[in-house]
């Protein structure tokens, strides 16, 4: 069959966009009515999607492979944890600080990217990822060290104006995560469509040509790493509220980094919705394979499914889905795009 052609900016395109938003809103509302356990799972997926979106900026769009994003996730989580437990701050008010600290750490980690690239840069980020749990253990007074940091559920109560009670904090965090994910996706979309977004991809595709076109590689790389860290830190902050108990060996080791990278490439690197799809895959695939077999075999099946997806869909699930949809609806650039307004 021939695909339906839709031009960007046309009424049909607007309609499609609104339909997409309505479908997403419907899915969120439906998710909110599920049992508490499912709501928690979906919250986890959304937090993951934010974390992977952060990684996507550096690794997907700009080609700076980071194996250390678990450190940003952890720094965001511990900032919120420490602020709430030690200083009695309201959880939501800790988000800006967590994001800011992670942006600064991201900027600093991005500095070596000015001199080194590829696997060597990945090694630097690896070091950061390895160091993070050690640093948490070292500053025991603040972080609780190896014993962990427990946030009491009373401290995680939803703000009073919501009228929600402590036991309803799950649904509160569900909507907070949904809002944070929406904001993240809008920001990423704006950024990647901008002049800076083109500079990011240009840097990834060909550094020398990018510099010859006037792209300040140093600025692009450090800015992107800072932003990438900030977004993953936002996810970490929400994650602290979600789990309520932080330990250095729990969720902030290199395994978390690997999970984020896996999610990114499964979902589709350098795509807007890839991280969301990847987050679903990373959270639900293990359950799915555990249903097929038990014990160690399920781990093997999980690995096999991962390999199969990477082989069959090198552009990620979102990339393949986009191509599949392209058979039915093709969105062409606006007729006037490029002509003077």
């Amino acid at each position, binding site marked *: 069959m021939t695909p339906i052609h839709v031009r960007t900016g046309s009424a049909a395109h607007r309609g499609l966009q609104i339909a997409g938003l309505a479908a997403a809103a419907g899915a969120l509302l439906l998710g909110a009515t599920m049992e508490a356990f499912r709501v928690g799972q979906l919250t986890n997926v959304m937090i993951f999607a934010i974390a992977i979106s952060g990684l996507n900026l550096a690794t997907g769009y700009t080609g700076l492979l980071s194996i250390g994003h678990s450190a940003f996730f952890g720094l965001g989580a511990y900032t919120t944890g420490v602020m709430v437990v030690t200083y009695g701050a309201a959880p939501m008010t800790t988000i800006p600080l967590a994001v800011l600290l992670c942006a600064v750490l991201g900027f600093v980690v991005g500095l070596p990217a000015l001199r080194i690239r590829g696997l060597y840069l990945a090694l630097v980020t690896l070091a950061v990822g390895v160091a993070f749990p050690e640093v948490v253990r070292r500053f025991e007074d603040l972080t609780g060290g190896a014993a962990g940091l427990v946030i009491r559920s009373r401290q995680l109560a939803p703000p009073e104006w919501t009228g929600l009670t402590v036991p309803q904090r799950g649904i509160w965090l569900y909507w907070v995560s949904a809002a944070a994910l929406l904001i993240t996706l809008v920001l990423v979309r*704006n*950024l990647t469509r901008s002049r800076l977004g083109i500079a990011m*991809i240009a840097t990834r595709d*060909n550094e*020398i040509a990018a510099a010859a076109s*006037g792209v300040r590689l140093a600025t692009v790389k450090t800015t992107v790493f800072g932003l990438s860290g900030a977004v993953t830190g936002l996810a970490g902050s929400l994650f602290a509220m979600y789990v309520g108990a932080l330990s250095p060996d729990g969720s902030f080791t290199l395994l978390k980094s690997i999970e984020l990278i896996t999610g990114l490439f499964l979902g589709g690197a350098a795509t807007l919705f890839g991280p969301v799809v990847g987050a679903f895959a990373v959270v639900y695939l293990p359950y799915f394979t555990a249903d097929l077999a038990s014990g160690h075999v399920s781990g093997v099946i999980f690995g096999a499914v991962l390999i199969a997806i990477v082989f069959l869909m090198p552009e990620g699930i979102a990339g393949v889905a986009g191509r599949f949809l392209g058979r039915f609806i093709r969105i062409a650039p606006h007729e006037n795009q*490029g002509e003077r307004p």
Partner: protein
Amino acid sequence: MQMVRTTGTDRPALTVTDVTLRFGGVAALDGVGFTVAPGEICGLIGPNGAGKTTLFNCVTRIYRPDSGGVSFGDTDLARVRPHDVVRLGIARTFQNLALFPSLTVLQNTVAGAHARHQAGFAAALLGWPGTRSRQRRIEGEAMDILAELDLTDVAHRPAHGLPYGTLKRVELARALAARPRLLLLDEPAGGLTHAEVRDLGDLILRLRRDHDLGALLVEHHMGLVMSISDHVVAMEFGRKIADGTPDEVRAERRVIEAYLGKAS
């Protein structure tokens, strides 16, 4: 960055003075000097390994000469960082294509205009109202350039997978988007068919006229160089062996020897 910007009416000359560059013990460039006058098309010829591309890379600051200097107007290029060369009005193409394969032809061209626009990082992130219309305007200018180079049909196609000759023109479009005063073309005819080479010569002359720019081209294709250049510089083993009009250079004994070998 504070730098004297070259404006549209400013027409600086490119001056290469006594440039020497060694790789280990090998002198890739040995005391090379010449001038590309404003609006002039200058051809740089020489056998493989003569040091043409090395010289090119000195101009675009990929290499830094050991001694001697390159200046554009009053600006000493040794003091300019690589990404600022284009801000002075010097844009280049590459010998082996250096496009951004995952971007569309239009986006590649827009990337070439990167230096002409302000950052606006926060504005980009938040999608400020002005950002969209500014983006439209930049794309509009890029589309004009694509139309000029007969690339309108492929504007929205990714660069990846287009034919070689087309990609060569996309590189030219990207360079033009920077609104340069001087174009550096590294083997623009390399890999093109005979017909394409003839069109390329006409195209370069037309661009010079319409965009008021000069060009320095490194080229093996003698026919092309001799037919469009105002001025030809010949090199061999890192040294300049001839410098003059195409006819003068063609008649130079050392040039004939370099290309045909010494008569016994």
